[in-house]
């Protein structure tokens, strides 16, 4: 049994529609805590999870931005964002809470194919 694999989490849900985004981050941090290589890819509405200036407390939701801030402590440094998903939603990489690496839509499939475990969430 290999002791280490490359895990890619593909985040496609907006941050505060339900509990999905928050539970996914539990997943991400646990996987990293087990000493695995973890990368994140934000696609579609998932890019909203990184949008700067959110105040979900106003609707009684937990703020997940601080959890993203903890990713570096878990050695998760590769946050990939699909450029077209950002652009289609009027967002820019500069308006996100963390530095990200950009990927174009035509590069996504090849990128995913290089990972061992791909978790769509």
């Amino acid at each position, binding site marked *: 049994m290999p002791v280490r694999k490359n895990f890619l989490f593909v985040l496609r849900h907006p941050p505060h529609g339900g509990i999905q985004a928050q539970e996914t981050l539990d997943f991400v941090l646990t996987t990293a805590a087990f000493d695995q290589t973890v990368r994140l890819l934000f696609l579609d509405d998932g890019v909203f999870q990184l949008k700067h200036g959110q105040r979900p407390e106003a609707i009684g939701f937990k703020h997940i931005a601080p959890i993203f801030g903890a990713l570096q402590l878990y050695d998760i440094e590769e946050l990939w964002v699909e450029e077209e998903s950002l652009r289609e939603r009027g967002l820019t990489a500069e308006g996100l809470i963390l530095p990200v690496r950009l990927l174009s839509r035509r590069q996504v499939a090849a990128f995913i194919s290089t990972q061992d475990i791909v*978790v*769509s969430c």
Partner: protein
Amino acid sequence: MKFAIQINGAPYQCQASDSAYQFIRAALRKGHEIVRVFFYHDGIYNGLGYAMPPDDERPVIGRWSALAREHGVDLVICISAAQRRGLLSEEEALRAGKADQDLAEGFRIAGLGLWVEACLRADRFLVFGG
């Protein structure tokens, strides 16, 4: 081949549970191994022991229990997702002063570490439900 499976959707709400079940039955028929089935997000509702569907409907939860009984498939429900939604094992229920046994036969409740371990042991990992 060894498969690890994750199910994210509640029964009846979407196709995730049905598709996963059919896939697992087919894989076992072909001689493949199911390392573990992990239930996350609303997928935890697949383990509600009190479900009583009408007799002329497919018993989504009961057939998971049958799968565990017949093939020893390890059905694991994520503890944090389950507690958040009110599904407790007997042991946790006792500890929380909510004595009951909500969990269907054949399931167990455990941490995400078991999911990571299943991914490491498996040749292929499949997620059902977005």
